[in-house]
């Protein structure tokens, strides 16, 4: 099935603030044939995001950031600071690649050399239109660290680096517990050998 198998019967804006929430009435074709009844669905409309796994292929280290997250505070998390890879909203007049380079410099101070697209994914496809373009960016972790971020946007970002194995251990211990970070680091653990060969740094 594809987009032509969906019929949008109506939509209204329920809330427009930093995010926008819409209500859709729609029906779609069924696997067994025929059409569903009219379905009522609330959906948060969010702009596309680009995320970057900043990877040093020579030292086999990944740059991580730590920042306060409102969603974790709202969930009652005892530690609403999140360890993540780089991510940010793509501006309308900007490509995902440009944004990946700009955001990595802003959030970590690292300049990206090679940049590879890894995947696109939806963090929460049942209730949110947000789509994340994930990249792996070649960086040097020499001298990486400190506090970064755009103070005007209320960003307060602690930057550090870990070996891929230590980052993976933090995923398994639950210290890294957000979808972008887990997906990025698990991707790196699964693909670093072929990536290092492609980038010409494998032993």
């Amino acid at each position: 099935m594809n987009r032509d198998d969906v019929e949008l019967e109506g939509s209204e804006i329920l809330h427009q603030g930093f995010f926008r929430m819409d209500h859709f009435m729609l029906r779609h074709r069924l696997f067994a044939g025929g059409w569903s009844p009219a379905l009522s669905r609330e959906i948060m409309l969010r702009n596309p995001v680009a995320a970057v796994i900043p990877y040093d292929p020579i030292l086999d280290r990944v740059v991580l950031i730590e920042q306060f997250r409102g969603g974790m505070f709202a969930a009652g998390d005892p530690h609403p600071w999140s360890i993540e890879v780089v991510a940010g909203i793509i501006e309308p007049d900007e490509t995902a690649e440009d944004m990946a380079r700009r955001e990595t410099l802003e959030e970590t101070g690292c300049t990206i050399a090679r940049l590879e697209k890894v995947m696109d994914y939806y963090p929460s496809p049942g209730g949110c239109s947000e789509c994340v373009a994930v990249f792996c960016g070649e960086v040097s972790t020499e001298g990486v660290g400190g506090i970064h971020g755009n103070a005007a946007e209320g960003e307060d970002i602690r930057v550090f680096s870990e070996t891929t194995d230590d980052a993976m251990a933090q995923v398994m211990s639950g210290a890294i517990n957000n979808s972008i970070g887990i997906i990025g680091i698990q991707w790196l653990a699964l693909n670093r050998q072929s990536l290092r060969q492609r980038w010409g740094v494998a032993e």
Partner: protein
Amino acid sequence: MNRKPQGLSREDVELQAQETLHDGFIRVDRFHLRHRLHRGGWSESLSRETMLRGEVAAVIPYDPVRDEIVLIEQFRVGLYAAGDPNPWSTEIIAGIVEPGESADDMARRETMEEAGCEIGRLERVMTFYSSPGGSSQRVVMYCAEVSAVDIDGVYGLDAEGEDIRAFSLPADDVFDMLSTGAIDNAVGLVGLQWLAMNRDALRRRWT
């Protein structure tokens, strides 16, 4: 959940006001707060909009004898709203945990509802936030022992408008789908990447 021993915690956040902006199937609140900074001192007062969503339980349904994984396919409004040319999503099992229900019970019930599978052993894999910048949604991920024989059909609750196709594939074929973009949702990626790294150990434990 193990967290770093040092670092900032909930006591380092001062909630100044909270207002509900929308309260329908999904609730959106705006928080006015400030928090301690990494270098010391406090941030300015920040305004943050957040979707308040319940806990989700997700299940990787794995047949360790046949080395097969059960997958489901269903329409997803988030993909449709994003303009995706194919708004049907290939996923593993997931659903919202009802009040009064344990995540374990929910995992068993939802796997039966969405794929017609009975669960044998059930192991907790990890817990994560799907989009912590703008949503409180937390996902508890399980791996479940199932039999993938004769998994092929349409499932789901009509009353909830669910129309779910369930099928099974060899694990290696599913792992290939991780690099082709055929799996493009957080729950599926987190769970299936985990299984790709842990399948051999899991099979030794279970068979």
